[in-house]
């Protein structure tokens, strides 16, 4: 092998071309990202100027009077995404562990196909199913009883509508579970079998093997999977627009209607077409959404790095 390599003629030019091609493809990503950020911020500038810091802290969004306070939308976006993560992450990680560590290979493979398939279901299908099946079911059998019996917990108090923060969070959880699970499964599979065998050889049980050999090296991969799921949840538009009740307000009672940044952009864009300031404000919402994902991604990277250096 090594002799072959040494005998091979130097092909510098081919190498250079390849390197340039790869580098230019990679730089497209940077250009695209930078271009989008600059362009959207530029287009949104009139709205930022009009509302100042109130764009982020204001709680009233009324385009008809030129009041643009995005806080209720930011709140709705974060609440629904966090609810989705709380519900989805444990389930998704356990599914992935089952598929990669516990299930017999045949079953694991076919269940894996099903998980991949779920990840590919278009969000509008989730939205329609949510409207016609999930909302009536949840309202009668889950949200109503919860608010009747657990009203002392603020989250479940003052039930207002079947279309609410929790319904939207739940549909998001259903949408991101297969994504997180599919990535986690691939991450677990990158753990060398030697490590598993080593753990088992010193007498570890299956659970101890997973805890000692599989989970620690997979930690940054799991965080990355969660981040991807979070990104999908934050940006999900149609299903949430159908299910959250389209009423922007900030409340601790999550069985009330809300709205999110992405849903609101989709719902109001047609109305904004002929009103320059309104259009700028909607693009501004897009910039805020972009910033949220950026901040959370960076935070996640920092967490991973701190965890690894320890």
């Amino acid at each position: 092998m090594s002799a072959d390599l040494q005998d091979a003629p130097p092909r510098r030019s081919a190498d250079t071309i390849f390197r340039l091609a790869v580098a230019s493809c990679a730089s497209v990503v940077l250009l695209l990202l930078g271009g989008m950020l600059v362009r959207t911020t530029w287009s949104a500038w009139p709205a930022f100027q009009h509302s100042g810091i109130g764009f982020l802290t204001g709680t009233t969004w009324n385009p008809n009077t030129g009041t643009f306070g995005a806080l209720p939308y930011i709140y709705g976006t974060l609440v629904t995404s966090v609810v989705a993560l709380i519900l989805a992450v444990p389930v998704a990680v356990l599914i992935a562990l089952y598929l990669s560590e516990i299930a017999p290979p045949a079953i694991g493979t076919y269940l894996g196909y099903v998980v991949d398939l779920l990840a590919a279901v278009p969000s509008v299908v989730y939205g329609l199913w949510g409207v016609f099946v999930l909302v009536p079911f949840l309202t009668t059998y889950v949200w109503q009883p919860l608010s009747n019996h657990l009203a002392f917990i603020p989250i479940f108090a003052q039930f207002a509508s079947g279309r609410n923060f929790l319904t939207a969070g739940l549909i998001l959880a259903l949408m991101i579970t297969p994504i997180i699970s599919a990535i986690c499964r691939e991450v677990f599979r990158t753990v060398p079998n030697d490590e598993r065998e080593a753990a088992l050889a010193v007498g570890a049980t299956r659970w101890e093997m997973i805890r000692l050999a599989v989970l620690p090296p997979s930690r940054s991969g799991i965080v990355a999977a969660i981040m991807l799921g979070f990104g999908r949840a934050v940006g999900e538009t149609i299903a949430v627009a159908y299910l959250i009740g389209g009423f922007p307000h900030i409340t601790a009672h999550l069985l009330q209607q809300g709205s999110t940044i992405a849903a609101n952009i989709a719902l109001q864009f047609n109305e904004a077409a002929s009103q320059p300031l309104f259009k700028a404000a909607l693009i501004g919402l897009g910039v805020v959404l972009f910033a949220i994902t950026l901040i959370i991604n960076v935070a996640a990277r920092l967490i991973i790095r701190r965890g690894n250096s320890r």
Partner: protein
Amino acid sequence: MTSQARTGGDVSKSSHRRAGRTAAVAGALGIALLAAACSSSGGSSGGSGSGAATINGAGSTFAAPMYQQWAGEYNSKVNKNVQINYQAIGSGGGISEFTQGIVDFGATDAPMSANEQSAAQSSQGSTVLHLPMILGAVAIIYNLPGVSKLTLDGPALASIYLGKITKWNDPAIKKLNPGVTLPSAAIQPVQRADSSGTSYVVTSYFSAISPAWASQVGVSKAPSWPTGTGATGSSGVAAAVSQTKDSIGYVELGYATSGKIPFASLMNASGKAVAPSTTSVEAAAAGATLPTDITALKLNLVNQPGAGAYPLSTATYILVAQAQKDANKGKALKAWLLWSLKSPQQAESTKLNYAPLPTALDKLVVSAVNSVK
């Protein structure tokens, strides 16, 4: 141990296969998206050959059943070479796509605002005409098990949507419904979350009869609602109301009758309780003042006088450029519009729970269509 090692091998192979498949799926998706993008942007330039034309329109969900029927009949019975595609994306969407030049005509229940009109005219490079095509009613639908007959009036309805009347057995509602047992349940108002001509009609009515509404919310296709749950599209509101006990909402009458959702009678300006119907919409139009300028055929049918007039009546408009860019398409569009305004086609509207234009107005619209070049 050996079995584990073998599993590892299988896994890496299948993950390669999977990666390949994912790429293939992504590629197919990309192509589909591209095709969709091309067909929608290429739409307005479609149509070739002498007399053959594809005309694209979009907007009002309120009027969609009528336009889709007219488009189909025209193609099958009158001119096979002319294909009219109508997409029900909401009035706000209709105005926006027409302004951007994505479609050949827009459709809206709310006349364009001054801003919208000037934006549309500068992008079309022409005067934009409002063509009333049919009349219709906005029905107030509700979901109250055991209550099959309900009467409301403007002030009570506005107060419900202002969040001031919150219980079904509020004295203001009880007074209008003697002999009806109303529950003490909280009212669940449902409204359109997207930009909607139906919302425009409802808020016009509320603003006309409630000073509090006029000052706090006003007339808008997308008002800032003080309370309630938002749903998307007329069918979304219909679904939300039929699913939610104690709810109330508003949709074009056809969505209520086809979904078998009960709807309320409204007290009109003459103090009579009137249910939405073809007749009560015609009665509202009979009392309305008709516009005279063919470049501004906007009319207000909300809260009209007349014993039989239904207060939530409206005209619904098609938007066209007076100076068409593509002569061939312009001719085809004009022919279809003139055909739709003839009395047999107008009479069909009653089968879908709309009402035909009054004869005098129909004549005005015909002369407006004839002014299209």
